C-alpha cells in the first residue's frame, strides 16, 4: 500500500504542476489526443456503419474486417508505422484510429439492425424516402447502440493512448515510461493512476450520455452493445 501513498504524494507534489510536461498539460494532451482519434475513427466508421446498417450490404466484409482489426496488436502497428513516418503523433493516430474503428462501426450498424423491422416498414409505408428513414427513424433509434460503440472505443483509446508515448512526447504515457525506464516506481504508478481516473471520468460521462439517449428513445431499454470490445 505504501507504493500507492508514494504515488499519491507524487501526484500532489506542486513541482509536477508547472512547466512542460506538468500533470495538467499531460492530462490535456491525453484527452486531446483521445478526442481527435475518436473523431478520425468516427468519420470513417459511422458513415460506413450507417451504410451497412441501412442497406444490409457489406456486412460480412465488415464483420471479417473488424475481427481482423481487433486482432491487430496496437504496439506492433505503432512501431511499424513509427518506422515509416518517424517520431511524432502520426503513428499513434494511425494505430489508435484503427483500434477505435471496429467498436464504432459495430455500434453504428448494429444500432440500425436492432431496430424493429416493422418500425422501418411502417415508416416506408407512410411515405418516408430512404434518406428520411435514415435521418428520422434509424439514426435516433440507433443512437443508444452507437453511443455504446463510441463508449467502448473511447475507453480503449484512452487506455491505449498510453502507448503513444513510446514514440511521441505526448500524454500520460510519458510519466509511465519515464518511471519505467528510470526506476521511478512512484512516477510510473502516479501516471497509471491518472490514466485510470481519466478513463473512469469518461466512462461516467458516457453512462450519462447513454441515459440521455435512452430518454430520447424510451423503448430502447437495456441495449448494451459493449458487452465486449
Amino acid at each position, binding site marked *: 500500500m505504501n*507504493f*500507492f501513498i508514494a504515488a499519491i504524494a507524487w501526484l500532489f507534489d506542486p513541482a509536477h504542476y508547472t512547466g512542460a510536461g506538468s500533470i495538467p498539460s499531460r492530462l490535456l494532451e491525453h484527452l486531446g489526443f483521445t478526442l481527435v482519434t475518436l473523431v478520425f475513427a468516427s468519420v470513417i466508421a459511422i458513415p460506413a456503419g450507417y451504410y451497412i446498417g441501412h442497406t444490409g450490404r457489406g456486412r460480412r466484409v465488415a*464483420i471479417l474486417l*473488424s*475481427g*481482423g482489426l*481487433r*486482432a*491487430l*496488436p*496496437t*504496439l*506492433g*502497428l*505503432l*512501431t*511499424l508505422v*513509427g*518506422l515509416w513516418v518517424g517520431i511524432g503523433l502520426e503513428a499513434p493516430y494511425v494505430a489508435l484510429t484503427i483500434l477505435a474503428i471496429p*467498436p464504432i462501426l*459495430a*455500434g453504428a*450498424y*448494429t444500432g440500425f*439492425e*436492432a431496430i424493429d423491422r416493422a418500425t422501418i416498414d411502417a415508416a416506408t409505408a407512410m411515405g418516408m424516402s430512404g434518406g428520411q428513414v435514415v435521418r428520422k427513424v434509424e439514426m435516433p433509434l440507433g443512437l443508444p*447502440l452507437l453511443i*455504446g*460503440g463510441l463508449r467502448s472505443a473511447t*475507453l480503449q483509446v*484512452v*487506455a*491505449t493512448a*498510453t*502507448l503513444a508515448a*513510446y514514440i511521441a512526447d505526448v500524454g500520460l*504515457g510519458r510519466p*509511465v515510461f519515464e518511471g*519505467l525506464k528510470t526506476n521511478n*516506481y512512484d512516477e*510510473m*504508478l502516479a*501516471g*497509471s*493512476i491518472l*490514466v*485510470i481516473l481519466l*478513463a*473512469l471520468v469518461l*466512462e461516467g460521462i458516457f453512462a450519462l450520455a447513454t441515459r440521455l439517449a435512452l430518454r430520447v428513445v424510451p423503448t430502447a431499454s437495456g441495449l*448494451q*452493445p*459493449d*458487452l*465486449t*470490445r
Partner: protein
Amino acid sequence: MNWVWVNLDLVAGRTLDHLVLTVPPIILTFLIAVPLGTIAHRYRATRGVILTAGGLLYAVPSLPLFIMLPAIVGTSIRSPLNLIIALTLYGIALMVRVVADALASVDTGVRQSAIGVGFSPGSVFWRVDLPLAGPVLLAGMRVVAVSTVSLATVGAVIGVQSLGSLFTDGFQRGIQEEIVAGIVATVLLAVLFDAALVGLGRLLMPWQRVQAGGSAVTRARETA
C-alpha cells in the same frame, strides 16, 4: 520475407512464449467468469456491483495495470505470472457481462417449461441455462481470446517476452520485417484460437448447425 525464414526459430520461440502467456488467461477467464456472471444474473443485488466492477476494471489501461498489479499482489513486474493475472482480469471484466447477458437471453418459455415438467434447479442450470447460453458464451469467449492474444504483446514493453518482443526488438534494430512478422504471427494466433473455439462450439453444440444464428449471438459477436 527472407528474414522470417532465417529467423523462424526466433518467431517460433516467441510464439511459444505467447501461448504460455495467453492460454491460461483464456481458460481461467471462462472458469471464473461463468460462476461470477451466474451470481450477477441470479441475485439482483450483486448484479450492479459485479457488472460495474467489471466495467471499471476494463477501463484500466493495460500498461498501467501490468505495472500496478505487482504492487497489489506482490508478483515481480517482469514475472509472466503478473501478465497472466492481468490478462485474466481483463478477460473476466469482459466476460462477466456476457455471461449475465447470455443467461438472461435464455428463453424464459423454455426454462419455465423445463421447470414445469420437473427439472430440478440443478438440472435447469446444467441442462437448460448453460447449453442455451452456449452460443452467446462462445461469442464472448471468441472476443476474449482475440483480445487476450492482442493485449499480451504489450507485455514486451515491460520486459515479458512474447510476440510483442518482435516489435520492440525490430523497432530498436530498425527491422520492419521483424515487426510485420510479429503482427502477422499475432493475428494468425488470434485466428487460430478463434477457429479452435468455433470448432469446440460445433462439437459441443450440434443443434446450432441446424438453426440460423440467433440474433443475440450475432449481436454479441459483432458489437464486440
